[in-house]
């Protein structure tokens, strides 16, 4: 069974081992130790770690398409946010009549805008199964339509990156509109409970953290499984030489579409887990700058390794948490400097620094050779450079 293959890989075993050990350790330190113990992990920290983990899952999703398919998506924030909105809508419906205006069905902002009934796209979100399905389906569908159009017409490279950016930008503007019925700039907030667990209780927070950790583990395994399968090898071939792969008889766009949709769904799940932990979803998650930041996490951790994406996401966000508190006036210098230094001096990211090379992970063959032997090409990106070689 293709899903079981990753468990035989040493890298996956290590990653899962570390992740689960960390989950267990944090849970233990949170529950078993008294609050005044220096090793006690407070619920505040647990929630923070949960947020990092959901970002990490998003980063894994980005790495899947960027690292293994060569598609630099500058719009993955859109899938993340759609998943988040699906979850947010469910949580809004769970508030019921406890809102400010006490309307049993309509969320506060709709009462406020004088809407007399729920718009059709809000129907069904009071049922958890439907909402959770939409967490996966909504981003999946968007990715399917978008990917179908883009891959069919062989939009590649920078053009693809920019139109993914246009997509998330357009969605951001749309969600900012109050008429859209998603709460406008204020977004969705003031959540009470999830599956009738009180979101403000420590136990729920810990539970969400663990759930996020497990989701990350599952996402990682799925990605590894895809990467290690024949599908994954075709993807890598597409990344390195799209035209050549096409001439070998592969329907490249189908592979691209499949991986892209899976990645979008993972991003959606990440968003859904993110929302209850931070307590708000708002159109700024659609902002192109956020999507670029996600790509930076992946680059920082090491593209095309999956675990690198996890490390990058956690590290950058941890740095952000610390710096915004310790040096509020100057943290952007530190963050900006970090991005510059890592890209210039650590082209393979932290994963590269660690010197770890698992089979099938690294950029193989001509790709890495090109880097060292021909440093002066000014072409645009990997997939198009493949085209050039094929046509040459």
């Amino acid at each position, binding site marked *: 069974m293709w899903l079981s293959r990753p468990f035989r890989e040493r890298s996956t075993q290590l990653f899962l081992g*570390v992740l689960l050990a960390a989950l267990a350790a944090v849970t233990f330190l949170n529950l078993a130790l008294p609050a005044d113990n220096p090793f006690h992990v*407070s619920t505040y920290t647990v929630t923070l770690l949960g947020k990092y983990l959901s970002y990490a899952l998003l980063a894994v999703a980005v790495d899947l398409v960027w690292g293994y398919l060569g598609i630099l998506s500058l719009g993955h924030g859109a899938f993340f946010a759609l998943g988040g909105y699906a979850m947010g809508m469910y949580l809004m419906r769970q508030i019921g009549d*406890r809102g400010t205006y006490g309307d049993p069905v309509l969320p506060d902002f709709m009462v406020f805008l004088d809407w007399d009934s729920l718009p059709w796209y809000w129907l069904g979100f009071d049922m958890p199964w439907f909402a959770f399905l939409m967490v996966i389906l909504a981003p999946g569908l968007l990715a399917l339509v978008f990917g179908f159009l883009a891959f069919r017409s062989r939009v590649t490279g920078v053009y693809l990156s920019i139109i993914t950016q246009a997509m998330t930008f357009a969605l951001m503007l749309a969600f900012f*509109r109050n008429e859209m019925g998603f709460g406008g700039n204020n977004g969705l*907030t*003031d*959540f009470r409970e999830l599956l009738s667990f009180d979101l403000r209780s420590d136990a729920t927070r810990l539970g969400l953290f663990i759930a996020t950790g497990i989701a990350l583990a599952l996402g990682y395994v799925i990605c590894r499984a895809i990467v290690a399968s024949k599908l994954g090898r075709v993807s890598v071939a597409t990344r390195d030489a799209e035209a050549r792969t096409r001439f070998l008889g592969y329907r490249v766009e189908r592979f691209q579409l499949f991986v892209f949709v899976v990645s979008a769904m993972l991003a959606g799940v990440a968003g859904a887990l993110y929302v209850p932990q931070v307590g708000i979803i708002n159109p700024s998650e659609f902002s192109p700058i956020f999507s670029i930041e996600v790509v930076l996490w992946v680059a920082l951790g090491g593209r095309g390794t999956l675990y690198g994406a996890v490390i990058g996401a956690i590290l950058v966000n941890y740095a952000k948490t*610390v710096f915004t*508190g310790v040096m509020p006036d100057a943290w952007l210098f530190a963050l900006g400097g970090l991005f510059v230094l890592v890209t210039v001096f650590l082209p393979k990211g932290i994963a590269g620094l660690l010197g770890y090379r698992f089979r099938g992970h690294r950029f193989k063959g001509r790709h890495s050779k090109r880097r060292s032997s021909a440093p002066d090409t000014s072409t645009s990106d990997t997939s198009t450079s493949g085209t050039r070689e094929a046509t040459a």
Partner: protein
Amino acid sequence: MIPTLPAHSSRWLAASLLSLGVAAPALAQEDPIKVGILHSLSGTMAISESTLKDTVEMLIEKQNEEGGLLGRQLEAVVVDPASDWPLFAEKARELLAQEEVDVIFGNWTSVSRKSVLPVVEELNGLLFYPVQYEGEESSENVFYTGAAPNQQAIPAVNYLMNNVGVERWVLAGTDYVYPRTTNKILEAYLKSHGVADEDIMVNYTPFGHSDWQNIVSEISQFGSQGKKTAVVSTINGDANVPFYRELGNQGINAADIPVVAFSVGEQELSGIDTAPLVGHLAAWNYFMSVDTDANYDFIDAWIEHTGDEMSVTNDPMEAHYIGFNMWAEAVRKAGTTEVDAVKDAIIGVSVPNLSGGYAAMMPNHHITKPVLIGEIQDNGQFSIVWETPSTVAGDAWSDYLEGSRDLISDWRKPMECGNYNVVEGSCGSGQAEAAAE
């Protein structure tokens, strides 16, 4: 080794996060009173919020020079939520749970307040919110020292209607909740005063809108129908500069079509060449040009604090000045910084404002304020042309909105309710449940 890294790093992470909060104050003999400052210092809102951080720091310094509070020194804890709304919630949690601050002064945008609100309520903190806002909210833990719509919008429209003779209205705003609410209230108010539908034009634009050609041309078209026309602008911060420039260049001057703005203060004007804008209006509860000794002293202190002769003061700064003094007074009155005691003590506290009167904290956690209308001058200041004869108490729930007309807020015992329905005679169901817990 990669296998050890995540585990190692997360433990290290947890430990260092803890140490951040715990290490510093443990040494002090008498713990200082911690004042959290939650204003964006980077990102889009830094333009507005960074001066508020400086204001609170200045107030803390001054308080410390006078011997602190309850014999203890005050200490500012500054964090940067970076104009990122989820980060606001996270930083509020950091301030309350990790730093254990006694009070927070912060937020500017509505969405950041909405994001922080559940955290402050859950961890029972105190938040002083200094910006004019849309109302329709009353939280046990939040004190609204900025204007509610009835303390800004309605008096301004009254002035235009009665003193200027305006009959046609353009309600132009940025598309978010504050302009939406304000315009909704104003529409209802105008219609109740006999303004016809076709004499009201409503227009929303996105944040940071920079191309106003079409809209300004529409406004001038709308204004050439023979009736005196005015624009009521709830356009947010950054979008104002290109808007006013376009107005000036298309030759719309204040004598023809005056614009009254609710979000344009001295600080916004300091980024605009105001010569073409002379005569356009703004409604606030404070202007830097207010002619009182208290205000001149405040300005002198502010100039000294910033070291910039040209630095300006504005309405949200005054709101923080009032809020800070109210909190200090309540702490003195309660004899402790403990949140519940301060919350009870602060209702009814009255402190001087900068315009020569007093501001009192009402039971609905809003304060009393005078309403001033000013005309823009060529030096970026306002000349006050009208003011309410007495102060106006902030109204959490607007009388002009369906649904909130019947709600009142009173946080005194025994009612202790933010949305009491006077018709049904019951507190909103969510609150009732919370009280029962």
